[in-house]
């Protein structure tokens, strides 16, 4: 049994949540308790499979999984002319890292939903969409096939848009979902068009094959611009971030926390295309600077737009945009020096590790912050900061979790946000002191913004209108506590995380030849 799971982990990673989603309408007929048990079991099993897969990759190297082949490592049939004709999952350290934390956040958000959505109707659809969103994310980060990537991108976008509209809320959330769905579909179409351009030239949809044949023609440049624009929109980078405040603020809190990971899957796609598909063939200095500019714009516009917000979730949504900028900045600096081994060793690798480390840190603390915002909304019925106050008297655990998340996002030691931001600051300073200073100022503004939120929500005398407010149910506290615990642990033991998970993930991106060899080595 264990051998079967280990041998088929990439397929099971998709199959388990997908079958779980399709079975939900049947399981839901049995009642709330079986449904809750089902959803938690499915997401927990998926997280365990992701952990096993990550363990296999980190200890034994990349895993190749070929669908429909007698042997999962039989990537290229003898009579196919050297082209892998089947769908192939290529799971290297970067993919395994993304899959692991996406599956974990999937479990945590479903655990939170068990309590936060207990009074809502339509839970069969809600959980089915949550599982399909998980399928989309996991598929995007594990597949080695570009068209397959597009399919999972669409599953991700459609499930996400439907979840944003889950609470009708006088049509406002439907409007937010329409914007998210339309723009995501537009991005998906551009990605599909880019894939068509690459397929037309290289006769293959497999990323490794395209990488091995990449000649960086003008059509490749058009495809690259389409891919960057489409995936940057999915990641919520400025100036393609406009959907984020609407979608993040109107979705239920658990969905918002998971949408952050869905956006990061877009970021993963961007990095995969830049490093593994194009790699050294592209003009990495020019493209790297394009990524850095997107990152700096995201950092600055995101945080400055957050400060005047009155809606706590809109404020957090702009901070999500701002934090994505750090990831783009770190990885962008690595891309600029991709062809310069000395600079890569001096600061490029650290910048990339900082950017990638920030992805998982952001998923933890921003997920936590969105869950605390959801807890407050559930108990008070408002997201308006002007109408809150004194909730620290009655929601002490939520306040504690908020403090941990807020200090982490502001880069205050010893929380995880500090460790990744320190790596980004110091490495980017060696590259461009001005950009490093901008990054630090953005962190200061982030802290200022969350001091405002903390004061507005939790400080002050207990308000008579919230005299009956009590702490949220235990499953919500457990979910927030799990993310808070990880936020602390990843901050106290950053070197362990960086050396075991982050550095191999960065190396997987940098070493394009190893990615290509993973597929061709399976002949």
């Amino acid at each position, binding site marked *: 049994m264990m051998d079967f799971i280990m041998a088929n982990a990439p397929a099971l990673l998709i199959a388990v949540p997908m079958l779980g989603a399709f079975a939900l309408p049947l399981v839901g007929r049995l009642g709330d308790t079986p449904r809750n048990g089902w959803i938690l079991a499915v997401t927990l099993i998926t997280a365990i499979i992701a952990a096993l897969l990550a363990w296999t990759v980190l200890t034994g190297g990349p895993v190749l999984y070929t669908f429909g082949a007698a042997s999962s490592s039989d990537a290229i049939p003898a009579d196919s002319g050297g082209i892998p004709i089947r769908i192939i999952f290529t799971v290297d350290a970067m993919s395994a890292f993304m899959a692991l934390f996406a599956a974990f956040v999937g479990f945590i958000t479903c655990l939170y939903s068990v309590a936060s959505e207990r009074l809502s109707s339509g839970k069969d659809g809600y959980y089915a969409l949550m599982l399909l969103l998980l399928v989309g994310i996991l598929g995007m980060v594990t597949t080695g096939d570009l068209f397959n990537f597009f399919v999972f991108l669409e599953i991700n976008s459609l499930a996400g848009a439907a979840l944003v509209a889950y609470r009708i809320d006088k049509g406002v959330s439907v409007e937010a979902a329409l914007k998210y769905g339309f723009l995501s579909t537009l991005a998906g179409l551009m990605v599909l068009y880019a894939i068509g351009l690459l397929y037309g030239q290289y006769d293959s949809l497999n990323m490794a094959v395209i990488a091995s044949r990449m000649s960086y023609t003008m059509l490749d440049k058009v495809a690259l611009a389409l891919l960057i624009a489409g995936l940057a929109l999915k990641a919520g980078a400025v100036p393609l971030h406009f959907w984020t405040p609407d979608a993040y603020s109107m979705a239920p809190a658990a969905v918002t926390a998971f949408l952050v990971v869905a956006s990061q899957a877009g970021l993963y796609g961007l990095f995969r295309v830049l490093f593994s598909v194009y790699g050294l063939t592209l003009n990495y200095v020019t493209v790297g600077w394009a990524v850095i500019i997107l990152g700096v714009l995201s950092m600055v516009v995101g945080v400055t737009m957050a400060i005047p917000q009155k809606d706590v979730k809109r404020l957090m949504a702009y901070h999500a945009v701002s934090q994505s900028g750090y990831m783009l900045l770190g990885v962008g600096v690595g891309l600029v020096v991709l062809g310069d081994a000395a600079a890569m060793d001096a600061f490029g690798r*650290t910048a990339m590790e900082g950017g990638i480390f920030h992805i998982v840190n952001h998923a933890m603390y921003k997920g936590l912050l969105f869950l605390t915002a959801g807890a407050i909304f559930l108990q008070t019925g408002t997201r308006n900061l002007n109408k809150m106050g004194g909730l620290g008297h009655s929601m002490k655990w939520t306040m504690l979790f908020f403090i941990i998340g807020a200090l982490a996002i502001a880069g205050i030691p010893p929380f995880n946000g500090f460790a990744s931001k320190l*790596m980004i600051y110091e490495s980017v*300073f060696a590259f461009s002191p001005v950009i490093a200073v901008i990054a630090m100022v953005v962190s200061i503004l982030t802290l200022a913004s969350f001091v405002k939120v903390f004061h507005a929500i939790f400080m002050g*005398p207990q308000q008579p209108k919230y005299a009956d407010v009590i702490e949220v149910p235990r499953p919500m506290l457990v979910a927030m506590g799990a993310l808070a615990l990880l936020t602390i642990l990843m901050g106290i033991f950053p070197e362990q995380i960086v050396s075991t998970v982050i550095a191999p993930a960065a190396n997987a991106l940098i070493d394009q030849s190893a990615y290509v060899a993973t597929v061709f080595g399976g002949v």
Partner: protein
Amino acid sequence: MIAETLYTGFGAWNPIVWLVAFAVAILLAWFIQRLGEPDIPGDGESGKSYISGNDEPSPEDGHIGGSNLYWGFTDAMKGYYARVVPLHTGCLTDYVLWFLGTFALLFIFIGVL
């Protein structure tokens, strides 16, 4: 102890050392606090808030809302906000234009430069 040290290429960060230093600082602060006078009793006239002789405001009036914070920052940056906030029109067609414009700029940047 060394195993927890994160090396950034230019410096190092050891959270364990930081936590120990933090704990020592907390202990020192607690020790200094212990040297002071004990707290005044919480009941009676001496336990009430003193706000320059004014009456203590009601809980509703005593809390400063979120919008009242950082008005100085937003006022100083009003030139910036006057340009950036109106870009967020909420109109889907505008956002599609932003996408097309960004793609065009990226293509010029990547394809021509």
